[in-house]
């Protein structure tokens, strides 16, 4: 039996499989299908300083092997998360990855500081939400803005700080370097690719917000490429995500450079997806005589 443990920024994950923020709520629903303690970690719905209602419906559109969403960060706010959700999640033997967002540098620093003091294991700072605007562009697309917001957050972070990158950029390596030079302990990628669908009958965009974020298997090759580029560019661990469905997808993402992975959209097709993929990963390791899953990270042969 291969060793599945991963030391991620000093935090031990029992295995590299986590859930992608925003696709898994706070775990209650999928917890009806299996023991959440089977997972390496749980990425919770993106949190903001105050409660957010999110966008009107429709918030989802299907695309070939993908989906677009424009949930708009609906969440109860960080305080209610801390009070109501952490106790629930702590019942399970898994790591809590708190995903946080803000609309200004101050808000980001504020929420990172607050969540730092709560009982979570890792902080994932989402600088890529297309809804969080700064001069019309998301924080995650400008190296200077990335540095500024990550520096401010890092100053107050008392837990490992993972910066989640947007794929909607010309040069992902440049953004990654900016985040790491500003103090990011780890990176996660990819967030969603901006996309759009139009209903040909009504001639209206399907999504209320006109555009939305593309996720699911369709983006997998883009995610693998970006994880590879970022792994070449910086020296911090990476949580790879974007379209992962199977154990082999996990292996591929790890070979590209990921130390852990997150699974999101695949859960919609099959609620058991993360657990099934984990078992497939285990089987793959055993079939290939790989002693520790960590051997895969960045092991692509060029």
């Amino acid at each position, binding site marked *: 039996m291969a060793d599945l443990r991963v030391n991620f920024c000093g935090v031990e994950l029992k295995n590299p499989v986590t859930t992608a923020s925003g*696709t898994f709520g706070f775990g209650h629903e999928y917890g009806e299908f299996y023991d959440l303690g089977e997972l390496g970690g749980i990425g919770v*719905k993106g949190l903001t300083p105050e409660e957010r209602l999110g966008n009107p*419906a429709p918030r989802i559109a*299907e695309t070939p092997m993908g989906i677009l969403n424009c949930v708009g960060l609906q969440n109860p706010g960080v305080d209610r998360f801390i009070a109501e959700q952490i106790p629930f999640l702590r019942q399970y033997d898994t790591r809590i990855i708190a995903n946080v967002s803000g609309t200004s540098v101050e808000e980001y620093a504020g929420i990172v500081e607050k969540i730092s003091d709560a009982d979570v294991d890792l902080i994932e700072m989402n600088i890529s939400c297309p809804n969080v605007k700064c001069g019309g562009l998301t924080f995650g697309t400008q190296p200077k803005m990335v540095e500024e917001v990550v520096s401010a957050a890092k100053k107050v972070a008392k837990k490992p700080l993972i910066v989640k990158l947007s794929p909607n950029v010309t040069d992902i390596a440049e953004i990654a370097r900016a985040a790491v030079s500003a103090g990011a302990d780890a990176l996660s990628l990819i967030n969603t690719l901006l996309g759009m669908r139009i209903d040909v009958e009504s001639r209206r965009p399907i999504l209320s917000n006109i555009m939305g974020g593309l996720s699911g298997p369709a983006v997998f090759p883009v995610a693998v490429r970006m994880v590879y580029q970022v792994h070449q560019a910086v020296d911090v661990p990476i949580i790879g995500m974007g379209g992962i469905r199977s154990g082999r997808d996990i292996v591929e993402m790890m070979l590209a450079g990921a130390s852990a992975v997150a699974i999101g959209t695949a*859960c*919609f*097709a099959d609620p058991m997806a993360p657990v099934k993929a984990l078992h497939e990963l285990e089987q793959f390791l055993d079939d290939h005589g790989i002693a520790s899953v960590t051997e895969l990270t960045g092991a692509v042969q060029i």
Partner: protein
Amino acid sequence: MSIQELCTVRERQALNSTMFALTMEAPRISAAAQPGQFVHITCGEANLLRRPISICQAQDGLLKIVFVVKGEGTKWLSERKAGDVLDILGPQGHGFDMDALGAHPVFIGGGIGVPPMLLTMQTARANGAQPSAILGFRNRDAVILEEDFQALGTTYVATDDGSYGIHGFVSDVLGAHIEEYTSVGCCGPKPMLRALASIAEEAGIPCQVSMEERMGCGIGACLVCACALKAKDGETRYGHVCKDGPVFDSKEVEW
């Protein structure tokens, strides 16, 4: 409680050129099914998302759904045959509150909103009520399930073009008979639901409406199936059709 079950198709029926019924062996889901709940069905390898379809009947370990072919997913579903196996999640969501119906509920379905009212009416009758039904269709060819409803209580059928039954909308029929009823339960296009809700509200009887929204997870985790509801402070809040609904109290809904 949501169950993932691999269900063998027992029977496929073409009701007309675009509407189909599938009856499946689903012992666990059918045993747990409540009126107004739905199932979330994987529709082939080419479609990433499951499709939400209401439960039309659930008994003796069998689950029946009735659906119209709209796009790729329902087309795939319509091509299933006896013996094929479907991956189904269910029963999902919060159905009709059967305790709030009173002695003479009326169940109203419009078009493809008709099927879920069948299990609902059946259950109401089994619970001792004397239910009626009002079913609305575009035209004669679109009429489905009429006898099943007739067997359970007084049933009016209306068609938009008058080619069958009453010429007019279900709201006209409800308006004409509203005094006979203690509550309304309904499913159909949003404008229809809104019209029915306002008739019920005027008459001072409760009205439960089954809403539709595009879905991701279907279990309450992803928050995509937002339905605008009235918050206590008069502001909007979003409920979620797959978990808080699909059935809501009409007074809660922000129309």
